[in-house]
């Protein structure tokens, strides 16, 4: 995070083919990773947030081993692994991908190879190379995007692909003494987003449906929508119980940005809802995209959330929201 903004991250996520990044580090020349330091922030007793470059990583440790949510870039895997080893010597058992973007799954293959799946019983035959690496869990749509890269892009290495997917609203697992609920947030940042709720630790790893540092990237090409992002924020708020007012209690690890709690997610939801309402109102008045842009419906939030340069500018955010909201289904 220190060396790359969300815009830069998303730029990589789109411009660099996922498979390329995952299969090898040869296409990483756009970014110099040499100065990136992986830092760990303690979130709760056995939960840490790793900050480096790319999406935040959540690490849960305990007697069963290590579970991580997202893997940043392949070039950083050694450093990420080194940091994880400072926290726990246990095997990496599970990797959960919040979605398919390269800045979140780039280290899949490396970190999987460093781990070991919990396998046997009636699932022993499901994975031919069980035991060779950690299980990678993702929503089915995330796997679809990773396994079918856009035309002209090289295929992804199979070792980097999710090994266990779900297509239902949720998937549960029990690990390190707590229930972990993986919930699908439909058509939000993409159409394959998962949020991960650690019920005992009371921590939510939100992926990119909640970011604290820039207008959220709405990946329309991969099924994203502003309505879905707002719905995801509302779902997260529903899960959170604060200590008092809007402070403390359930903590939220954003896809990008700082460790958050309900107050931050409420402000994010408020900002997005108000902007959505304004753009919807302008669309109802029959305005074209150009007219909506000229009306500056985000002007009061721009100094905090906007950007006039880089991959994901305020204009592109407004354009994506306009396209979503003027589509027939209102998506």
């Amino acid at each position, binding site marked *: 995070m220190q060396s790359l903004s969300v815009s830069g991250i998303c730029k990589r996520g789109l411009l660099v083919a996922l498979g390329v990044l995952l299969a090898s580090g040869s296409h990483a020349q756009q970014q110099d990773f040499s100065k990136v330091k992986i830092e760990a922030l303690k979130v709760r007793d056995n939960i840490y*947030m790793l900050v480096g470059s790319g999406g*935040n990583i959540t690490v849960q440790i305990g007697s069963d081993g290590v579970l991580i949510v997202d893997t940043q870039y392949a070039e950083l895997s050694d450093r990420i692994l080194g940091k994880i080893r400072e926290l726990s010597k246990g095997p990496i058992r599970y990797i959960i991908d919040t979605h398919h973007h390269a800045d979140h799954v780039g280290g899949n293959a490396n970190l999987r190879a460093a781990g070991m799946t919990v396998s046997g019983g009636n699932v022993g035959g499901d994975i031919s190379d069980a035991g060779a690496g950690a299980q990678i869990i993702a929503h089915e749509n995330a796997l679809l995007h990773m396994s079918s890269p856009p035309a002209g892009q090289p295929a992804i290495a199979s070792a980097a692909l999710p090994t266990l997917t779900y297509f239902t609203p949720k998937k549960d697992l029990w690990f390190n003494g707590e229930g972990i609920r993986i919930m699908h947030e439909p058509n939000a940042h993409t159409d394959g987003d998962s949020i991960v709720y650690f019920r005992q630790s009371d921590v939510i790893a939100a992926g990119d449906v909640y970011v604290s540092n820039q207008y959220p990237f709405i990946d329309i090409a991969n099924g994203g929508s502003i309505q879905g992002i707002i719905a995801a924020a509302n779902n997260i*708020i529903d899960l959170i119980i604060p200590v*008092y007012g809007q402070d403390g209690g359930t903590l939220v690890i954003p896809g990008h940005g*700082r460790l*958050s709690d309900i107050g931050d997610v409420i*402000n994010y939801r408020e900002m997005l809802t*108000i902007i959505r309402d304004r753009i919807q109102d302008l669309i109802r008045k029959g305005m074209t995209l150009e007219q909506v842009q000229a009306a500056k419906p985000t002007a009061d939030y*721009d100094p905090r959330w906007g950007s006039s340069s880089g991959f994901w500018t305020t204009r592109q955010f407004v354009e994506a929201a306009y396209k979503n909201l003027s589509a027939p289904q209102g998506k």
Partner: protein
Amino acid sequence: MNSPIRGVLLLATAVLGCLLTSAALAEKNLAGVWTGTYSEDWPDRFPGPELGDYGGLPINDADRMRALSWSASLIALPEYQCRVHPSDYANSFADIRIWEERDPVTEKLIALHLQHFAWQTRRTIWMDGREHPPEYAQHTSMGFSTGQWDGQVLTIHTTHLKEGWLRRNGAARSDKASVTEHFIRHGDILTWTVVVNDPVYLEEPFIRNRDYKYSVDNQVANYSCESVVEMVRAPGYIPHHLPGTNEDVKIFAETHGIPYKAAMGGAATMYPEYMKVIRSLPVPPPR
């Protein structure tokens, strides 16, 4: 121990104690309950500011738009009902209690704690020289504060604040703000000066002073807040005014005969020279 030696030791201890106390005199003792003293700032401190009164606030265009979009119905939503005053505002409202946390062996001051009557929030001001956490650490309503004595003035630096407000009428203060405070004690009178620097929403630093009197008898009253559903709303509904549609914000200017433009604030409205400008501005029709 025989008594002459004991006497010498006692004397030495007393001398040393006096020396240390004198040395420590540069630091004031702020511990105790302090009661707000109110004068012309009463309406702003207790009942709260009127809607549409942003005069004297160095807010920029973006914050003005936030303020004009703000609807007071927002605080009827359960998740907003107990939203606390941020630490750069909470002192303004009623009484405060300050107490010290000292190392039991060395008596070194580790932290000052401050409790506000408003929402019963408590904050810690670290006095042990620790560093502020990295930017990606959690932000809170109270923020992360470190303090030091500049002579007899306690100066506090606060970061890691969540978004709050400059006034309880929609004028937002962003989470990118940093705050410097000074606590200045003159006998039984305590002055709190707060300087808000907000690169997102302010044209210039916003400075506010509040006075308190040392209280011998008072305690800070209990203040509890319980969120309830007051009315059934559509899920995800956020009350706000679409740009250009908020007529309520004109009431203040019309009631008091203040030009609309002056009521909308901005750095210029902080300065005495602005009185000349006000006279040149059209006064709205009385309500």
